[in-house]
């Protein structure tokens, strides 16, 4: 980081932060130049429309650092109350994690372990089905740098980066001049497959509009064609909404490519079929490696959702939906995932970190979350913080808090904060809660006493 400070007569001091990292989406652009005046970012050079909104709207807000049942309280009181709620619960849930640093995610995983909680991240309602598919099929993958330097056939399937990852095209996938694609866009062919003619489709050379909920059928058609099987043209068009000739042309382009890439989005994972859709795409990618080099990558949404997958994996062995109640990790999407644990009315307390299930979950899940005591950490007021028993206003990662995040291709990127915040970081709050939970549930053993955890009723108040 290079900070250049210039003095102004009446203006607040202007600070320039070079190579700052935007953590709004999974592209994690780390080439942003921030102009900072006091506790506000006034300009974010090279940021996209989403990054600009991210940087210019995260200033120090006039809100209490902690609310307990809607009333202002000190951070220390909040930590104590949060620890009490979680330590007394029989089936706590720790959920979210995707918009905070790796360092905070690590503490959240430890806390879940001490609590014997269900640990789940927003991956479960994003690319969780793809995570299941990775386990079933495997993933032929690469870094975004390889896409930039090698990719000559770029396919977006059920993904609309023009709106969700606006610099994807210019920084990695379409426009850059790379080592083996020296003419940039002219050396690449772009195909978009979607049910809508999105803004991304308008940037494509070929747009293939399929029937809604026909992703699996279309991908299986491509697998069959890649293997040289003959198909019934009438059936293919009826199943996919496109003539067989369109799919034959795409398969031939895939085989001819020197380095093909499929970026896929939640058009696959959120639609009927879910992990089966992702499995079909991964299997197609694997099959194409009989003919040429082909890779695929999920386009990840939140700034550090990939970090959440990595941290939870290296702490528990599984990427999301992990139950730690028996003292060892168990993985079972549909059973230990937050949307299910809440909708079935199982969790009796929750810690919601950097996510907003009150806006994004199903009605039964939200109604249950409203009924139980829960703790929420967020830099902004959200529907989730409004209903929280204990709500912490925290500093924003990347803008106020240093640390590490993982780009969508699993590359770790350092954060370069712009200005300090009076609010604590997620990590500080979580470490405070963890310290109390450990003291109460696992007091230091006395000579001759049992090592079993203390009963909930004996917690210090």
């Amino acid at each position, binding site marked *: 980081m290079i900070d250049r400070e210039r003095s102004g007569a009446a203006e607040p001091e202007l600070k320039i932060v070079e190579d700052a990292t935007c953590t709004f989406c999974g592209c994690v652009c780390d080439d942003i130049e921030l102009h900072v005046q006091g506790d506000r970012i006034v300009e974010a050079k090279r940021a996209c429309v989403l990054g600009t909104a991210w940087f210019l*709207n995260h200033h120090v807000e006039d809100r209490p650092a902690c609310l307990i049942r809607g009333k202002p309280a000190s951070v220390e009181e909040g930590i104590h109350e949060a620890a009490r709620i979680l330590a007394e619960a029989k089936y706590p849930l720790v959920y979210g994690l995707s918009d905070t640093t790796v360092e905070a995610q690590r503490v959240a995983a430890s806390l879940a372990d001490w609590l014997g909680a269900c640990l789940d991240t927003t991956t479960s309602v994003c690319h969780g089905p793809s995570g299941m598919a990775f386990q079933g099929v495997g993933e032929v993958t690469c870094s975004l740098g390889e896409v930039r330097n090698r990719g000559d056939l770029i396919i977006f399937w059920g993904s609309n980066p023009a709106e969700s990852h606006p610099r994807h095209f210019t920084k990695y996938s379409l426009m850059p001049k790379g080592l083996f694609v020296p003419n940039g866009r002219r050396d690449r062919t772009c195909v978009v497959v979607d049910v809508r003619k999105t803004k991304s489709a308008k940037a494509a050379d070929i747009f293939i509009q399929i029937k809604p909920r026909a992703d699996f059928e279309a991908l299986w058609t491509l697998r069959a064609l890649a293997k040289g099987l003959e198909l019934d043209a009438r059936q293919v068009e009826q199943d996919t909404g496109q003539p067989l000739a369109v799919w034959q042309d795409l398969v031939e382009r895939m085989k001819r490519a020197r380095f093909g890439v499929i970026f896929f989005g939640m058009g696959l994972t959120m*639609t009927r079929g879910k992990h089966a859709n992702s499995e079909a795409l991964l299997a197609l990618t694997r099959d194409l490696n009989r003919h040429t080099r082909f890779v695929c990558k999920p386009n990840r949404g939140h700034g550090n959702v990939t970090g959440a997958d990595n941290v939870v994996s290296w702490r528990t062995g599984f990427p999301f939906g992990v139950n730690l109640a028996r003292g060892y990790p168990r993985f079972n999407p549909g059973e230990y995932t937050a949307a299910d644990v809440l909708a079935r009315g199982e969790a009796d307390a929750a810690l919601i970190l950097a996510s907003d299930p009150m806006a994004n979950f199903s009605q039964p899940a939200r109604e249950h979350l409203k009924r139980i005591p829960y703790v929420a950490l967020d830099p902004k007021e959200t529907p989730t913080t409004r209903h929280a028993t204990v709500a912490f206003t925290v500093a924003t990662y990347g803008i106020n808090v240093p640390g590490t995040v993982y780009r969508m291709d699993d590359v770790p990127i350092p954060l370069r904060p712009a200005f300090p915040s009076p609010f604590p970081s997620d990590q500080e709050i979580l470490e405070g809660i963890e310290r109390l939970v450990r003291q109460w549930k696992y007091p230091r053993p006395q000579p001759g006493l049992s090592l079993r955890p203390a009963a909930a009723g004996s917690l210090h108040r």
Partner: protein
Amino acid sequence: METHGDQRAMAEEKFILIPGRTSRQGCGISEGKFGTNYREEIQTLQMSPQDMARLQLKDGDWVRVATEHGSVEVPVVAAKADELPPGVLFIAYGELSSRLMGADTHGSGMPTSKGLDVTLTKCSPPEMPAGRHTPAN
């Protein structure tokens, strides 16, 4: 289910609803989820111009969109050019789109959140603006 508005003008129509991201919704998250930009974006339904004409709807008319899990009442606007094919609706992700999805994740952890079967009827605008919702039962 609670009923609002005037349904005389239009019978129940079947559509497939695709909730998704938009730039404005993404910016609205950073600006604040209780701000005008975000609220307007997640509370506006898009429909193909062909379906708008067929159903004699104009921009700003109010419709009720329902699944077996809940219903919401929102203003409808015509999608730009050919972004949406007939029979398909679009709404930005948010509280209203979530009210239309069921809790069952089919063993995946992910509720079916796109490609939802919905019914649509015309309704009268609310006295309080934007985003009325009536959970099933």
